[in-house]
């Protein structure tokens, strides 16, 4: 009995999840220990809530969530509409919603529920039947939350729906000609989209292309975060010994720019460690995919990998100046209740897929 139970647990996944969480707490502490707000304590609270949820999900089973996925999707869309109406404005964007003492960011949950709904939808259709209709349906599913989030305005988060859709359609079995068509149409649509961007969003993209454009605003952050990461060198300045991030050169250093703190204090060695953790995380998720025969489960895990990877890639790229600055958090590591809860739920779903895997 106990053996059976042990078999159901994916220790590698739990190990990477807990390690990433530990790194998160360490660097939230490092980035904010000189400030009165106890961000690391608050994050510990969210970690305990998140872990509880994550370990409860396998008891319910991921299929329950997939069955409810359309309902959850509609709820999260409604929450996004609430943000539009009664949202909380921080740093000029309405992304937050106050529920009692807690402020939640519904876009974090919308990503997850959209993955679930897409898995359910794509998994219920075969790629060799009515393919174009399914593609249109899938597009509709992501466009609603995408547009709502873009209006907040949170361009970065809304763009995450694109890799989500591309990856899920790809593993579902979409024909290559559609992929090529999509690339061509994006290339033509980009200049049109440009017109609809807000001034500061345009600035960010322009500044990305030329950081010297605006040394006071977005360019300042770009240069400073690059300096912070670069100053870490090979071995870093040591934990709590960073100066760039500590001295507030880098804004948002406990949320979007938390990687600056790690990069500066632990250097390239720390970066390698973090990359290794993400590598193991993705590896174990791919293992889970290869051990299940449930198409919906495969799609669900692929969507999770796509979004988590896109966030890691964009977040770290922006801190070293390879991508424009967007408000995208580093999954597992950045401070933020909603973001951590969302990855915890995703983690719980992955554990459940593993538990209910087909034994071969």
């Amino acid at each position, binding site marked *: 009995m106990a053996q059976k139970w042990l078999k159901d647990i994916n220790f590698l996944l739990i190990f990477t999840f807990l390690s990433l969480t530990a790194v998160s707490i360490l660097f939230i502490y490092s980035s904010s220990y000189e400030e009165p707000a106890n961000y690391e304590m608050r994050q510990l609270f969210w970690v305990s809530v998140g872990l509880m949820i994550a370990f409860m999900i396998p008891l319910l089973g991921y299929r329950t969530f997939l069955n409810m996925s359309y309902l959850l999707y509609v709820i999260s869309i409604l929450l996004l509409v609430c943000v539009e109406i009664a949202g909380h404005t921080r740093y*000029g964007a309405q992304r937050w919603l106050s529920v009692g003492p807690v402020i939640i960011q519904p876009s974090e949950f919308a990503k997850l529920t959209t993955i679930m709904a897409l898995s359910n939808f794509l998994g219920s259709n075969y790629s060799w039947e009515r393919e174009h209709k399914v593609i249109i349906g899938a597009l509709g599913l992501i466009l609603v939350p995408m547009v709502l989030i873009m209006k907040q305005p949170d361009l970065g988060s809304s763009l995450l729906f694109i890799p989500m859709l591309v*990856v899920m359609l*790809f*593993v579902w*079995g979409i024909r290559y000609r559609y992929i090529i068509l999509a690339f061509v149409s994006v290339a033509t649509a980009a200049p049109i989209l440009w017109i609809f961007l807000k001034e*500061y969003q345009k600035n960010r993209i322009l500044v990305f292309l030329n*950081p*010297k*454009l*605006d*040394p*006071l*605003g977005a*360019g*300042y952050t770009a*240069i400073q975060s*690059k*300096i*912070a*990461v*670069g*100053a*870490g*060198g*090979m071995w870093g300045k040591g934990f709590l010994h960073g*100066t*760039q991030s500590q*001295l*507030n*050169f880098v804004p948002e250093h406990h949320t979007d720019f938390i990687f600056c703190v790690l*990069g500066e204090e632990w*250097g*390239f060695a720390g*970066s*390698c460690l973090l*990359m290794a953790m*993400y*590598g193991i995380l*993705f590896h174990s998720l*791919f293992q889970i*995919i*290869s051990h299940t025969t449930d198409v919906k489960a*495969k799609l669900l895990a*692929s969507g999770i*990998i796509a979004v988590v*990877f896109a966030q*890691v*890639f964009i977040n*770290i*790229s922006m801190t*070293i*100046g*390879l991508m424009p600055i967007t408000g995208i958090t580093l999954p597992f590591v950045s401070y933020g209740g909603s973001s951590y809860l969302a990855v915890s739920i995703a983690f719980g779903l992955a554990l459940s897929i593993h538990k209910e895997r087909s034994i071969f």
Partner: protein
Amino acid sequence: MRYLIFRICIYLGLAFLLGGLFHTQVIQGQYYMELGDKNRMRLIPVEAPRGRVFDRNGNLLATNRPAYDIVATPEDVTPDVIKTLSAMLTLSNEEIKKRLRSPREYPFAPAVISEDISQELAFKIEEMRPDLAGVEIRVSGLRFYPYGETAAHIIGFIGKINKQEYLDHEEKGRYGFNSMIGRAGLEKLYDEELRGWRGGRQIEVNAQGKLVRVLSEKNPDPGKDLIVTVDLEFQKRIMELLKDHHASVAVLDIKTSELIAMASTPSFDPNVFVAPGLESKRLSFIKDKEAPMLDRGISSSYPPGSIFKLVTALAALETGKITPGTHFFCSGQFRLKPGTSPRKCWYAQGHGNLNLYEAIERSCNVYFYNLGKLLTADEIAHYARELGLGKEMEIETTNISPGLVPDSAWKKSHFKEKWYQGETLSFAIGQSYLLTSPLQILRLVATIASGGRSIEPRLLRDPSIPPDTSRVAITKAHIEIVKKGMLQVVQSDYGTGQLARLDFGTMAAKTGTAQAPPLNSHAWMTGFFPYEDPEIAFVVFVEHGGSGGIAAAGIVKGTFEIWKEMYGPKVA
């Protein structure tokens, strides 16, 4: 197969990130480490020069003059420096330390120690700089209003941004901790246009805080200039005319809707709000019982008194209650019903039998009491609103008083009482709860003068604003009747405004003497010139000035004499 491709893509992505990190941290690590070494990189914001304000003839009403400020980078300042500075500036050590500790926008941003110091002192400090680590002289642009109080209410003034305002503004690049922000008038309303965009430099400095090289630089983008419609010379001479009154005069070009003058006395010197170290003077303006900060033309509303008879007359004509030939007899008093207490005409002996033209000409209260008996309060209120009373104005300034046009619904919601017919009588002669600002009266009279064109007085030369073309819903023929009545006010020997009669053309006007117990009445006069094809409209308001036909008419005459000197040949 597809999962394998996906998997490989993810691993390649992670490898790409590692490569990028290796490049930044290991290959370029040394360079960034030096740059990041905390004394080596600084950000110096450069404020954009604020846009200037010109009058219609190109005279500068608001500009920037160079000022010398002492700033210091607290991280570089040593205790000796504080001592030396304290001796030179006659500031206590503690005061200097306090200023060094004031909140700053960026790490290593210089703190302001003293603003607008003399040139001599600036040069002296510049000479001593080798001994004053971290101290610098910065040349900044200080707002300057060359004509002081002449157009103070129109231009307004600016002041240092406060914490809340800083937080409220999203575009952080435009507002710094020490930026100035518009506080009143055009400076406030057009702050966005005037302020421009800040620039800045990111520099690398050596251990002594001296510039090594500029890493990146962005020049500030100066603010836009504004041109106001006012003629400064005209305005200045009107201000002299009003010197001893609490009064407001506004003159409007009817063809273009441009205000040529908009004066209000007493006034204040806006420079006091901009130059540093004049807090006590600022407070004295703000607390002054004479209220010099108040623009009496726009920001405050008063009962219009007999001026309002123009509206009552139009309401009676439009509703078909009277024709211009309708006669009423004035015995010097009027009773609503037999037995009620009588209301007096201002002319106790009585005006006798009058038609509408004569009633306007002599401003007979009894005639208009009779109209008030024929009309309801809601009918009068409707036409008052149609002519722009009780309505916001579009004029380009701040603190615009909307005035108040009462009606039965308003009274019900404010006093929980029904409207009494007796109140309609007061309403008909411009008393009761009615309040109007002088500029609203100007808008009304300009509309009448133009035969019913809706006119929005403008203060800013802005070609993007479309000209006023819409009309009020009042019959042109009825407006012409009222205009003829206004002509008689000035030209007839019985007219209440004959003191304003001009020898170089015919003016049409209406006087008003609004009761303001317990003090002296407010004096009003408004009208247009010339009667045929009107070019300008005017309003004169004298707070507690007494009779409109005497106090206000005198100022009207004075204003037109100035106008004739300045613009005369064109008309004569």
